[in-house]
């Protein structure tokens, strides 16, 4: 089960925050196929957001094939998202790269900005 944290000042649409947090939970393995998402009522009660917003987020997740609504039972995870466990070679490479960036004198914000710009370049046009 996940718990959503809604930031009303983030400028990110509320339904999108739910979509992103669900995907994050899928990536981190906090949600696995077969797991049930909280009901709209539960989310609404905990976060005081509009019920239609939750339903919109769940429809979006369903459209992307990540979850499925089972009538009268709830919304369930269908598949997980390509996860990158902490021991993957990619993690090690990124870690080594970050070390080199620090040695080169880059601050935390510089590294983040550089990483984001490369990310932007490579994933341009893809869905968020």
């Amino acid at each position, binding site marked *: 089960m996940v718990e959503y944290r809604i930031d009303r000042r983030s400028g990110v649409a*509320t339904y999108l925050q739910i979509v992103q947090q669900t995907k994050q939970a899928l990536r981190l393995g906090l949600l696995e196929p077969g797991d049930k998402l909280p009901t709209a009522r539960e989310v609404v009660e905990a976060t005081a957001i509009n019920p239609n917003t939750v339903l919109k987020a769940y429809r979006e997740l369903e459209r992307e094939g990540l979850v499925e609504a089972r009538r009268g039972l709830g919304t369930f995870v269908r598949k997980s998202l390509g996860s990158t466990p902490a021991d993957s070679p990619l993690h090690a490479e990124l870690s080594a790269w970050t070390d080199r960036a620090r040695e080169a004198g880059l601050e935390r914000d510089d590294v983040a900005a550089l990483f984001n710009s490369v990310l932007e370049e490579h994933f341009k046009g893809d869905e968020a």
Partner: protein
Amino acid sequence: MTGTALEAAALGKKFGRRKAGWALHDCTLRIPAGRVCGLVGPNGAGKSTLLAHAAGLLAPTEGSIRVLGTTPAAARERIAYVAQDKPLYPQLTVAETLRLGRELNPGHWDAAVAGRVVDEGGLDRDAKIRSLSGGQRTRVALALALGKRPELLLLDEPMADLDPLARHQLMGTLLADSAEHGTTVVMSSHVVAELEGSCDHLLLLGEGRVRLAGPLDELLAAHTLVTGPSSGDLAPHTVVESRTTGRQVTALIRPRGPVGAGWQTDEPTLEELVLAHLRAPQAPALTLMDDGADGGETDGAEVQEAAV
């Protein structure tokens, strides 16, 4: 979730022979069933007057108002209304007040919901209403309203005297109830930020008239915040409000066609949309129709803009 919860046609109200004018004038609006509608506007805009009409406590001077497909009087059992001053019997205890709710609503009283709302606030059921704080009375009033299991819940400034935790709890309870039973909620508030996220429908009143009405998503999408050089030309768009600072101008517009190059554009937040309209009382009214077919999608939206 189809049908109309609240509908007014050319609704007007004048109090006494006051020459000051109309408390409500020529209000035509429709709120589909199942919506959570935020009712905003400056003091004296007519918010409380509109809610009291919907509750059947005031009769229109002209025009008409219908709720849940019938007159407010005929729908009384299906409506719950919490007035701004949260009237309760001060000499009764909390328990007696809940019993009153049960006895006055035979057949559809939900004791579990009402009891939970009261208990979440840690209220002593043997305490007299007069000994409670303003916020605690609000909690009891909302417990009565929710216990009635209404189809339409009319709330006049419900959260004004609640602490942040109580606000969050009660808003959550309210919305969960709406999610489960399809209850329509119409709620006035001055705290616009509080409505952001909770409401899917907006009604902005000013000087007794409808200024903005429609599904929130669509109202936001119909407006654009633009920033650019003060020499820039915003024709042919409808400018709601524009402010010039040095060489820069910031404006809220209703775009007609693409916005020219040289303007930085953003979608406004609910707060920006409401504040711009409050600062610019002369801006034309905008009503976006909502056929109530789905949860606020763009289909079937009709734009209707009128100079006031």
